[in-house]
């Protein structure tokens, strides 16, 4: 055992681990972060995959990062700089497009082209979703109370929550109930008639989840993505200067400023447990480091079944973790481009290239993409969310050249026959071919192509089954059920061993809330 002894060791330098470390260090705890890879960030990393071209390799946009974390850790001082991602354009199969711009009058005019009624409905819908996000917002900032528990703290939490929901009034309570139970397609059907609009909106309801737009439960994921706020405005998405790795760097900067140590290339083999109490960690190198608190930022499967011996844990917990659903469903294609794509629906350069292009022409298109995945194939015509970060931050690529980030769904982890190099390339081909239907010059621009399947995501980042949220954002594994009932408050049955990843409440995206809440719980428990 090395002589150095820490108050807290954080396993995994993903953004939640870094947030937890920063809060622990800020409270005066001697804190060490251990990251297996040569770089910190987990799935929020920027890498120069091809010389001169920088990619937010996995996670690529930001919206959900909690404002209280930005304030508490003064992240802008450490490099957080979020640039606006202002528009979403959906190319349609008939050569037309559907656009949503940053200006409400322009968006309204555009929507009127397709459906004047939807343009009216969008205003009322936007107001309702604002209320829904407001309704759910307090939950994001609270340790989930267990409704089956009778402890005073749980009851107080439930009472607070009950009071909060009562204050919503019937109209909003009913709307919330619907959002919690319906499919995004059904929910949007109640509001809109233009198919491409419903499809593009419902796309946020399927991201990172093995559900189709017609699967019940997908409406909640829609709301999860609506909750993103930038400077107090909901539904704002942005792009971090320098890529998402720079977000991780800013959190790491804050953690270091508070005295935390961060070691890369230091993979943790296991957590040392003595008499039901965590005493430190053992690295793959054999080195052992002692600490009174150990917190895992890894996903629940790794936290409970790899870092510790399941024998140390109650059987039902281990069983619950085995049943917890990962089912990675998305992939990523990163392209280095010699020039800009030329979209048939909006030829030439234009503001659309500074925003997102969404390949979601209809609900049926998305549902068929899901059908492929349901039966173990990647989507032949997938849903894609495309951004060109070099249009927003010129530093991402050499002058005149560009990087393109394509989020792709569906690519099931459990693909028939397993993922092979050939299958990965076939998947990459399907993506480029689909994109070429809307931007025919794309193939001639590609200088380099990086294709990441869920299998690759798991191999590189460690995320089980390549699930980008450390487990699906499905209702049965959210809030006081995330990752499993009774162990949804960041603790584990092993004293001094904690969890702080997105596999805990409130979950995925570059949000940082899990890391913060876990750190605050640990500090509460140890002070």
């Amino acid at each position, binding site marked *: 055992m090395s002589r150095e002894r820490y108050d807290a060791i954080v396993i995994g330098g993903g953004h939640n681990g870094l947030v937890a470390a920063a809060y622990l260090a800020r409270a005066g705890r001697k804190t060490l972060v251990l990251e297996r890879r040569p770089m910190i960030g987990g799935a929020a990393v920027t890498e120069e995959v091809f010389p001169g071209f920088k990619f937010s390799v996995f996670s690529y946009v930001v919206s959900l990062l909690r404002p209280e974390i930005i304030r508490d850790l003064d992240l802008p001082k450490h490099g957080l700089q979020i640039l606006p991602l202002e528009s979403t354009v959906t190319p349609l199969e008939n050569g037309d497009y559907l656009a949503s711009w940053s200006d409400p*009058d*322009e968006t309204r005019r555009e929507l009127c082209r397709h459906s*004047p009624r939807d*343009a*009216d409905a969008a*205003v009322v819908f936007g107001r309702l979703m604002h*209320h829904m996000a407001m309704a759910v917002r307090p939950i994001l900032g609270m340790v989930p109370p267990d409704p089956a528990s009778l402890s005073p703290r749980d009851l107080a939490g439930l009472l607070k929550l009950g009071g909060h929901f009562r204050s919503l009034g019937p109209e909003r309570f009913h709307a919330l109930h619907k959002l919690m139970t319906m499919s995004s397609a059904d929910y949007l059907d109640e509001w809109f008639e233009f198919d491409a609009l419903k499809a593009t909106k419902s796309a946020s309801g399927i991201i990172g989840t093995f559900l189709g737009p017609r699967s019940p439960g997908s409406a909640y994921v829609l709301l999860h993505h609506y909750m993103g706020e930038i400077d107090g405005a909901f539904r704002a998405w942005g792009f971090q200067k320098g890529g998402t790795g720079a977000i991780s760097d800013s959190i790491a900067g804050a953690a270091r400023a508070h005295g935390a140590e961060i070691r890369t290339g230091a993979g943790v083999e296991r957590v040392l447990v003595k008499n039901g109490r965590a005493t430190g960690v053992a690295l793959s190198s054999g080195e052992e480091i002692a600490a009174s608190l150990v917190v895992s930022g890894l996903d629940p499967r790794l936290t409970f079944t790899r870092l510790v011996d399941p024998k140390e844990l109650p059987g039902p917990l281990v069983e619950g973790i085995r049943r917890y659903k990962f089912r990675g469903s998305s992939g990523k294609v990163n392209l280095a481009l010699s020039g800009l794509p030329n979209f048939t629906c909006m030829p030439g350069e234009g503001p659309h290239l500074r925003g997102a292009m969404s390949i979601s022409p209809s609900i049926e298109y998305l549902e068929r993409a899901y059908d492929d995945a349901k039966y173990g194939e990647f989507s032949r015509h997938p849903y894609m969310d495309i951004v060109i970060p070099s249009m927003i931050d010129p530093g991402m690529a050499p002058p005149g050249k560009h990087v393109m980030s394509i989020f792709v769904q569906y690519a099931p982890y459990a693909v028939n026959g397993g993922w092979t190099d050939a299958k990965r390339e076939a998947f990459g081909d399907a993506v480029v071919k689909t994109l070429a239907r809307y931007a025919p010059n794309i193939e001639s621009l590609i200088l380099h192509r990086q294709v990441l399947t869920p299998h690759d995501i798991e191999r590189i980042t460690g995320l089980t089954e390549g699930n980008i949220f450390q487990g699906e954002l499905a209702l049965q594994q959210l809030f006081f059920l995330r990752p499993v009932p009774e162990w949804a408050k960041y603790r584990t049955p092993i004293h001094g061993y904690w969890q702080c990843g997105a596999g805990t409440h409130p979950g995925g995206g570059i949000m940082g809330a899990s890391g913060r809440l876990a750190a605050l719980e640990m500090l509460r428990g140890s002070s």
Partner: protein
Amino acid sequence: MLKTSPFHPRTSALVRAQTWRRWAGYQMASAYDPHPDREYAAIRNAAALIDVSPLYKYRITGPGAARLLDRMITRDMAKLKAGQVYYTPWCDAEGKVIDDGTVTRLSESAYRLTSADSSLRWLHLNAVGLSVEIEDISERTAALSIQGPLSRDILSRATGADLASLKYFRMIETAVRGIPVAVSRTGYTGDLGYEIWVDAARAVPLWDALIEAGTPFGVTPAGVWALDIARIEAGLIMMDVDYFSSHHALIEARKSSPYEINLGWAVSPDKGPFNGRRALAAERARGAAWGFVGLEISWDSFERLFAARGLPPQISNVAWRVSVPVYKDGRQVGYATSGCWSPLLKKSLALAHLRAPHFKPGSPVKVEVTVEHRRELADAVVRKLPFFDPERKKA
């Protein structure tokens, strides 16, 4: 890009100081001159030509048209004759105002609705089960308002129609130089005036004809700044300035009933079922919690506040549109939502929401004013609206 009005080819050439603003997604002139004094004067002294094309307009036809509108608005459609126009609010089920506008009965079974906000979805939601056709004619129809004491002379000359017999809130169909137009004796200035409805494709020749006919009478194109002063003098409210549409309000407290925004006169509680009837009946029975009134800010008090800092009173030639607290006996009893210096009445005016029972005309209140970076209170008196109501408006 913002939309431009069908009159844009003419109006854009006249905007000397590039003073543009947004109105319902359109790019419209705030003023043509660098400041609006001359344009405002034309409204009260001669005639002003005001482009009001950004209004939303719907043509509603079919056997169910009257039923639909009767369900929607608070006034009684059974009493609306062909060729007559209603000004009316419409409410949600809780009796809170969604929007206000006009309903014109174009013929036995054809109506035109104008509104500040898009109303297509609301019309369709209310049309369920009715045999009715709803057409959004907002972009197809241009609207030009001619307002001021000489507007009748100009329009009579341009149309050749007998406008002397066209009564207040009535409409006729006629033509200007062969261009078919509908002329309604309506407006947003509280003066003698007309609104002219025309096919957008013929907007420019209509503009030219009215300028030509009006020039000997001093007709002056006027922008939104001038219109804003005139409408405050006339006590006419503006959606999302003086009240929030219940479809836009983020919180309940921002919503208003017709009784709370001085439109109680436009509620016909005894007509058939309509949106908000039950809530409005209950509110009428218990009395509205808020009143919407005029405030006349005491010049002496205003002048004293400035004099105390060694300054002359500062007034703007543009109306203000921010919420300003109103006090009585040291307690806040309401807020003013827009106001202006009235060049005609030589008074500082405001439109205000006051809690019951403080809205009785003649009640003294205090209004917050900022003088040289400091918040001060000026004396004001509650006035019944409108501030300005010339006989010629209805004569």
